[in-house]
């Protein structure tokens, strides 16, 4: 097992390098933002040349990659172009907690709903309940998040009002200005209001996939002989399902959960854009279209490295919960 882990960790290095080169190559296609400054008569030509040189835009993209990469290795992630005066690292560390809060809550909510309905749907296969769960899962998977987000906004921020005339839920943002220093509970309540709509939108779109997965995993287990044996020897049905079957059905779910964790950091670009949440998803999109490659690259690398690492974690956890699996 130890050799297996060492080999896998070493295998991650070329993978991360490919990811870096592909992403950097694509970003380098975004036109040089300083070239446009030539139009501006108030900026000296020499200053523009200096900026272009400092940012490495005078080099071909692969040399710029090495310049960036050697900085990254030394721990210098570079300045941000999108927010002049901040380093890319600061910009990312402002967006990260916002996204983790949103996506973490969304993840817990969708798992907490999806797993029970997936189990019920499998235990009562082909019943009305099963059909309702299946249809709801498909509705969620097919619903474009930007449309659902706008519909929610129309309902809760335009149509429904509070007695005071204010919208029932704020249409966007993540905190009411002026409440940053409020007491803990007031601040919590304020933040919760802003989270309701995005969390519902994201959870509805992801819970279908989890529920379908839970259902098929449970169905696979229920068909097996040891479940029939348990029933034959008179184990009560509840205990057959929740003790004998569920434990094995959860094994693939554990890996699914491990593979979903990186998404918590990556954020959800569309939903964050609609609800005007300054998280990772919308930040990366903004950064890359403005040629702010240091910020965009850190954001992307953070989630890619987590995806690669959690793939390994998923495999290790899988072997740990299921002793039948041996890696060599």
């Amino acid at each position: 097992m130890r050799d297996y882990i060492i080999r896998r960790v070493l295998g991650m290095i070329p993978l991360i390098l490919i990811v870096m080169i592909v992403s950097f190559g694509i970003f380098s296609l975004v036109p040089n933002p300083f070239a446009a400054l030539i139009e501006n008569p108030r900026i000296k030509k020499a200053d523009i040349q200096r900026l272009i040189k400092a940012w490495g835009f005078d080099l071909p993209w692969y040399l710029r990659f090495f310049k960036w990469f050697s900085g990254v290795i030394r721990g210098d992630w570079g300045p941000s172009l999108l927010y002049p005066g901040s380093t890319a690292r600061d910009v990312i560390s402002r967006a990260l907690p916002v996204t983790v809060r949103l996506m973490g809550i969304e993840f817990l909510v969708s798992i907490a709903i999806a797993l029970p309905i997936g189990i019920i749907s499998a235990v009562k296969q082909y019943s009305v309940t099963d059909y309702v769960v299946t249809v709801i899962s498909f509705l969620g998977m097919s619903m474009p998040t930007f449309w659902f987000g706008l519909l929610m906004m129309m309902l809760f921020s335009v149509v429904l009002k509070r007695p005071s005339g204010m919208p029932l839920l704020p249409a966007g943002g993540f905190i009411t200005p002026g409440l940053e220093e409020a007491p803990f509970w007031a601040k919590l309540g304020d933040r919760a209001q802003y989270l309701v709509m995005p969390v519902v939108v994201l959870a509805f779109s992801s819970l279908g996939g989890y529920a379908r997965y839970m259902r098929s995993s449970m169905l696979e287990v229920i068909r097996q002989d040891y479940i029939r044996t348990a029933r034959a020897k008179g184990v009560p049905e509840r205990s057959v399902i929740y003790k004998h079957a569920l434990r094995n059905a959860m094994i693939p779910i554990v890996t699914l959960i491990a593979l979903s964790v990186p998404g918590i950091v990556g954020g959800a670009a569309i939903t964050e854009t609609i609800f005007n949440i300054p998280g990772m998803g919308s930040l990366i999109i903004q950064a890359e279209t403005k040629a702010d490659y240091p910020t965009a690259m850190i954001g992307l690398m953070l989630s890619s490295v987590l995806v690669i690492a959690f793939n390994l974690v998923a495999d290790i956890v899988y072997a740990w919960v299921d002793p039948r699996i041996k890696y060599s």
Partner: protein
Amino acid sequence: MAEKAIEAKKKGQKKSSEDYTYVGMVFHRLTRHKLAMVGAFMLIFILLFVFVGPLIWRANPNTQIEGLGGLFNPASRAHPLGTDDYGRDVLARMFFGGRISLFIGFISAISSTLVGALVGLVAGYYGGWSDNILMRFTDAMLSIPTFPLLIALASVLGKGVWQIILVIVVFGWMTDARLVRGLVLSLKEQEYVEAARAIGASANRIMWRHLFPNTLAVLIVSTTIGIGGAIIYEASISFLGFGVQAPFASWGNMLQNAQQFIWNSPRLIIYPGLAIFMTVLGFNFFGDGLRDAIDPKLKL
């Protein structure tokens, strides 16, 4: 077997699954899958709407009504779905926007599947170094967060229909490649492949004539579901402003345009979103039913 079918018919029994050809059996199982049939009817409805609709309702999607009185009209006899912010007929824009969205969905899903199949066939059949390199690359592409790079590429490549298709294909072939490679690894050990090799068939012929047809069933399912995904991608790209550009309509850019009028004209948001939702749901229902229908282990 024919005699058996006649006998069964005489007795008034239903045909058993043995009496069908493979395609006939899949079709028979598909027609018994309720959600797949719901999906099929939704898709037929959408296709009729998009392709036959303009023959009945002959309005030009880009004609603007002059004057402020023509903007944001509610539904009327002259404009069944009203007019938009330029005074254009929304129903006509729904037809032509749908054609573009469906076209992008179909072409990019089919192309991604073919690229994935090519990579999977080569990796699975040759094995060794080519397998190692191709699959590491596939793994790397799978671990990049797709959406941000999709947007970056779309923002540089330009905003035509073919550029968007290219962008979706670049980031859409990886799961099919893995799927096909897995299938090919087990298929290439079977006797018929060995027989083909024994009579001197070239690697190309074995891959495309013998192995590829055996992966088709799985690939058709993945393409069907992929069309829905590609339509969502197109809409998301257009929604962020990097997709199909005005004056051409797509359901995605109609929605993007409508977003700023959420306060005074919410119906402009409802129509294109509903169309995208219905289409994707139809492909998902149908694709899921198809998957069940080609799986011989499952009872329907």
